């Protein structure tokens, strides 16, 4: 059924004519195309739906955060901050980081320390995976739910 060339042409027509949605059914065949609205790239549903992105950090002008994870990180497992505080990548100044890109980690692996109210909290991975992204710089402030690491399945 999926005639890619036809779909490509359909999408072109949608984009150039500002069409938001096309649905076609015939028997048990169905094609559905949707675009979010004017001036935005078409999102094609089916075959594989994209997972919802994790919570994006709001306004962190205080913390000079690197750019938040964008959609191409969506396949990664995120370890998020369970509290508000200051992120430490290593157990003490000058020491090696708990994890780096490529580290394979296990649920019990300590991945960072978050300091809140003078208490240093070791944060464990709780999952198994290989570190592919580290979103937060050393000594940066983090909020609840903020992605710290992105892992791929080992």
């Amino acid at each position, binding site marked *: 059924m999926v005639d890619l060339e036809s779909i490509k042409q359909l999408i072109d027509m949608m984009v150039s004519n500002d069409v938001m949605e096309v649905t076609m059914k015939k028997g048990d065949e169905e094609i559905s195309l949707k675009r979010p609205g004017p001036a935005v790239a078409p999102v094609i549903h089916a075959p594989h739906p994209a997972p919802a992105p994790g*919570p994006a*950090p*709001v*306004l*962190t*002008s*205080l*913390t000079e955060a690197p750019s938040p994870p964008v959609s191409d990180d969506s396949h990664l497992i995120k370890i998020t901050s369970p*509290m*508000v*505080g*200051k992120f430490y990548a290593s157990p003490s100044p000058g020491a090696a980081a708990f994890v780096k890109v490529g580290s394979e980690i296990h649920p019990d692996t300590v991945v960072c320390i978050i300091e*809140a*109210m003078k208490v240093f909290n070791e944060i464990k991975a709780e999952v198994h995976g290989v570190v592919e992204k580290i979103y937060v710089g050393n000594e940066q*402030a*983090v*909020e*609840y*739910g*903020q992605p710290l690491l992105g892992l791929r399945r080992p």
Partner: protein
Amino acid sequence: MFKRILIANRGEIALRVLRACREMNIETVAVFSEADRDSVPVELADHAICIGGNAPRESYLRPDRIIAAAEVSGADAIHPGYGFLAENAQFADMCRECNIAFIGPSAEAMRMLGDKATAREIAKKAKVPVVPGSEGIIESDEDLAPTAEKIGYPIMIKASAGGGGRGMRIVRDRTELHGMVKQARQEAKAAFNNDAIYLERFIDQPRHVEVQVLADSQGHVIHLFERDCSSQRRHQKLIEESPSPAIDARTRKYLCESAVRLAKTAKYVTACTVEFLVDSKLRYYFIEVNTRIQVEHPVTEMLTDADLIREQIRLAAGEPLSIAQKTVMPHGHVIECRVNAEDPSYGFRPCAGLIERFRPPGGPGVRVDTHAYQGCRISPYYDSLIAKVIVHQPTRLDAIRAMQRALREFVIEPIKTTIPFHLRILEHERFVEGQVDTGFIERSLL
């Protein structure tokens, strides 16, 4: 003055504090639960930090997370709003330990006035009338009659171990006293295995009248007149107004001066509200002090042109009062209605959900404090207040009409709100006459 204030609250009061900060050129830090990510205070704050999940005990009730947020954001003060941690003395202690100013009274003052017995002692010391009572349990039935005589009828018999109305009796005159006490003791014994009772004057159909007080750390204490909050449903205030239609100028003077004396005696600093019950003969009795800003503070703001939040922040920063008692000029009449996302037809059950149409009222003499907007979602995790509508007019009758006008043009769809119920109160003859006691709504409108 503070450089950066963290607002440890949500909803309309977070927005209210944020507005005051902006007007004072103070930076703001909003903290929020995940449910409040798209809220107006989060959008408008200079900095915003997510502190936890949706349940208040995972976010707005977490002193540790709020203080950590203040630390990482460099806030030098925390405004607690009302509710949540606003009257939590331990939180005020923690702020002090972390060198963060708590915008409210000291933890000591909060504890002292938060305890009913201590507050009553302070009131007595300040020569502020309290509800007369036996000051402890009645040991011997021989003391009954003289004590009752001293208190004055009608009298309420209360079980010392009591609760839920059990062991309670109202005694209208002395002939009923011994019989009622016997019944009360039996009931208390049966319910609590404790037949100790005490006596208190019964205040029949009281008005709830409270006085707004401001105090600086230099020892100046002023009042900004009263608010009448007698329109209540199950002890939840629905409508507040000032001046109180129930009291005369002489009672007003005594009441307000009593509140000031009490705050002075407690060496209170910042803003508080002193609550009284007023009976039909205009006798008034202190009941409690609220050591925070209150939901209905805009009533006083419109009546007097004072800005209570800005003043509260100044006072917490150690500045002297910017207003002197003699410059407080109440004028006209102010009414506030609390618009809740509740369905009055179904026992006021909360109505969460998406607001598809939202058009607040405007025009002359109308103030709206709301965090809601078209397209926002009212979450089921928090209290149901979505807007306060406050009107200011030359007379009480004008104010009632202006409030009817404002509520009738207020569009909130499709969720149900208390607006239709407010309109019923506003057109009720007894409300229009100003004849409202705290039981009126339950007796007449439910």
